[in-house]
């Protein structure tokens, strides 16, 4: 039977799995940023999720809200660049609605993504179509909202898939925000690195919940 939710301790494990996965995705993400940005996205994300991992491992798990805030603060204070602000905000801003929740289930997932999306857009003003991580985050958040009553194990792969399709769509976009902005037509054909990170985070979450946490390797 599909897993309906994670306990706090399991959520820590899931986030650690994401940390491992994102560190293993360093080259993939830098490569993507090299094509349309300055090539440092993987370096920054790997550094941030390494710090997040250290904090998760050294601080006793308490509440869901605190866990996500811990990851958010780690990213915000160690990634730097646009990604640090954006992904830090995703985890910090998305943590608010997790207050009081005991389990990480599909509703918590939807709450995190939707609050996170709102916070990211307030901070960075990017809209869908601007070729940023918002193009993966927005469809993922919307899909999560539709699936709030499913078991987490069933919802997560679909939410990750929605993000993946968002990444695909960024290939057809001309960037209007961030360092790829002036690339114009030349950005066509290349996915947005931050969108790719958004998908990967969700994909690593799905992997853990499906019990495939030994496979934290980039796709």
């Amino acid at each position: 039977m599909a897993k309906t939710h994670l306990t706090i301790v399991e959520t820590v494990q899931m986030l650690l799995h994401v940390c491992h996965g994102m560190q293993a995705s360093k080259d993939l993400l830098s490569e993507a940023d090299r094509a349309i940005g300055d090539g440092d996205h993987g370096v920054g994300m790997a550094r941030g999720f390494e710090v997040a991992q250290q904090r998760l491992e050294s601080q006793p798990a308490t509440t869901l809200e605190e866990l996500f805030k811990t990851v958010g603060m780690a990213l915000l204070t160690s990634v730097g660049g646009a990604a640090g602000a954006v992904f830090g905000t995703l985890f910090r801003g998305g943590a608010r609605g997790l207050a009081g929740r005991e389990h990480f289930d599909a509703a918590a997932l939807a709450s995190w993504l939707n609050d996170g999306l709102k916070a990211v857009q307030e901070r960075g003003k990017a809209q869908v179509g601007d070729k940023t991580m918002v193009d993966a985050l927005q469809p993922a958040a919307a899909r999560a909202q539709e699936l709030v009553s499913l078991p987490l194990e069933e919802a997560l792969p679909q939410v990750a898939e929605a993000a993946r399709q968002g990444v695909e769509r960024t290939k057809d976009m001309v960037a209007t925000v961030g360092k790829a902005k002036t690339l114009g037509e030349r950005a066509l054909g290349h996915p947005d690195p931050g969108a790719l990170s958004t998908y990967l985070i969700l994909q690593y979450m799905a992997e853990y919940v499906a019990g495939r946490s030994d496979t934290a390797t980039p796709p």
Partner: protein
Amino acid sequence: MKAKKIINDPRNVVTELLEGLVWAYHGRVRKLEGVNALVKTELPPGKVGLLIGGGSGHEPLFHGFIGENMADGAACGNIFAAPTPDVILAATRALDQGKGVLYLYGNYAGDNMNFDIAAEMAAEEGIATRTVRIWDDVASAPPERVDERRGIAGDLFVIKVAGAAAATLDSLDEVYRVTAKARDRVRSMGVAVSAGSLPETGEPTFTLGPDEIEIGMGLHGEAGVSREKLLPADALVDKMMQRILADLPFRRGDEVCLLINDLGATTMMELLIVNRRVRQILEREGIAVHDTIIGSFCTSQEMAGFSISLMQLDEELKRYYDMPARSFGYTRA
């Protein structure tokens, strides 16, 4: 081919370069404990703080421009990555003396977001901040969307004026006004001849063909206005100057400061040959040059290429520009 660099562990480059820089400041600048921020050892009491910052890897920009009549401190990010809000906040606290702190940096999504987060945190602690984003690169957006333009080497002019203003004027709003005026009067344009590389990956940030250049390319390899075959220097400068002059626009009778900035690996020989053409053009256009700066001030690792920047002066800007200044990377006697 991976770039050959004289470094130790690539993950430590920023820590180590800041250590080397603090040594080079000979006690005039110190590093804050635990964060990559440098601040003046002795702050003139009661002055408005001037905090600059941005990604590292562009040395001597930004952290090399701390000093007398220059910035009071710099928040330093990793290579090509904006500094994080905690670093900016720590520097803000160190600089605030009750008169508030002006944030001055290049207009990039990452810098904007991180400095804004820090500004909100500072406000929660009762520290007033104001922000001037530098957007001098005419190649990066049309004039009607000037606030979408990138900040490039023109940073030096704005920091020079802001440093003098912050040393003279007593209110954050006044320092803001002068700094924003300087920012509004600077225009730059660059050209890339070959790429720099990230120390951590050893990979170039972009690729150009053996006889290609890119006019208007940004400091991190962001696209410019056109990719072309290598041109004679004069023809290239003509193209660049045409865009720069038309943009503000600069007019007959104007007085300007001129900066020809090496992006990292361009020879001084080339910069001087460029200067010759720039001055021929300005002479023809009836634009007087008050001062010339030529060298490496805003680099992009070992990128080859250069940029031309002009700042249009008025009496007030000229006064601040002419004040002596001393920092690691720029000194005016």
